């Protein structure tokens, strides 16, 4: 493995993914309450895993250009689909956890301001989960 | 190469033992269900490392998806805390 430009780029992408995953895990233990922990956990690990996917995509595209076999390209495309699945599901899960925590009555620690406290939300009556699913899929159209 | 794979397997097994002990010691049943979910996640990763992707996909579907859902339905219709003996 000689150090061409493509190889250096791939290794840099890999290091970025390591750094941000480590940072997210660190933030999970340093921050004081659920909401701030969600900040660290969602953003940093999504970003880190995104860069892991970019690494694999760049690696297999490079091999496809060198070797010319279609299975390398196939791998790049599937990794891209995994990346899209991760990007759609991860913020939605974080939103669900934050909402559940607030409904349970957990106050944000050291809060300066809380507009949601005592606000009367007007939500259509049916179950939230069902509503959310259909609106998401309608969004795909 | 094999050394790295063995190290990963060692880490995953340590995680499995930790989460399995947590399932036993938690008194809050919903926390126990969460720990069981984490345990079956790591078990799927272990199958993946042993190059059995079909078993891993079944473990992911049954362990992480279905079992947690069924346990939560059961906890919802009974009580949340374990009784003291």
């Amino acid at each position, binding site marked *: 493995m000689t150090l061409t430009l493509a190889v250096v780029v791939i290794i840099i992408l890999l290091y970025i993914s390591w750094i941000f995953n480590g940072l997210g895990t660190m*933030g999970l233990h340093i*921050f004081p309450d659920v909401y701030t922990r969600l900040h660290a956990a969602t953003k940093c690990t999504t*970003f880190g895993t995104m860069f892991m996917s970019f690494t694999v995509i760049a690696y297999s595209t490079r091999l496809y250009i060198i070797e010319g076999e279609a299975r390398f390209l196939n791998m790049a495309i599937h990794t891209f689909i995994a990346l899209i699945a991760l990007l759609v599901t991860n*913020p939605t899960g974080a939103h669900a956890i934050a909402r559940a925590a607030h409904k349970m009555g957990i106050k944000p620690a050291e809060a300066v301001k809380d507009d949601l406290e005592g606000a009367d939300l007007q939500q259509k009556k049916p179950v939230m989960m069902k509503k959310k699913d259909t609106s998401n899929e309608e969004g795909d159209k | 190469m094999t050394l790295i794979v063995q190290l990963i397997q060692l880490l995953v097994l340590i995680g499995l033992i930790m989460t399995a002990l947590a399932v036993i010691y938690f008194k809050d049943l919903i926390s126990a269900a969460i720990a069981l979910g984490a345990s079956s996640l790591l078990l799927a990763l272990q199958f993946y490392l042993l190059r059995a992707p079909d078993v891993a996909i079944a473990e992911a579907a049954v362990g992480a998806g279905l079992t947690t859902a069924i346990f939560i339905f059961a906890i919802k219709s009974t009580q949340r805390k374990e009784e003291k003996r």
Partner: protein
Amino acid sequence: MKRSKAFFSTFLFALFVYLFLTLAAGQSLATESPWSEIIWSFEEIVLGISISLLVAAVTNHILCRKRNFRMMNPGRWVIMLAYTIPLFFEMAKANFDVAYRVNTGNIEPGIVKIDPDLKTDLGVTFLANSITLTPGTLTVDVDEEKNELYIHWIKVGEDPTETISGRFVKWIKRFAE
């Protein structure tokens, strides 16, 4: 008329997803052209069309629930793809922001209300996900009648609506409304 249009658009969407998933998956038997490994074989296309017809017949009342066909316009999809570029830079900024706060512990959290003035469900969904992925903000709850969002902000500042959502709303309005 509207029903057949819903059927057709669902069919196109399903076929597109199938063809994207099976791109470069197998060899077409056709020729020795350099593309023969990448494009789909004849059997693959026939199977994709029949599966997409089945999916469209079953799910067109779910996927096109509101009978609103604004997303049939391919220009909107192009804008949606272009939107990922500013989103990516905002995400990068978000991560350095979190890195800074992890190291210094400089937080001042609170929950604020913003009114992004969007009308469609797709737009609100996109905005909520984008807000969750960008610096120091996390969507907690949504008012579905007035389309207002409640945001957990890690460093409360002035004028939340403009500061948090101003960058995205002008992009999202282009493709979702």
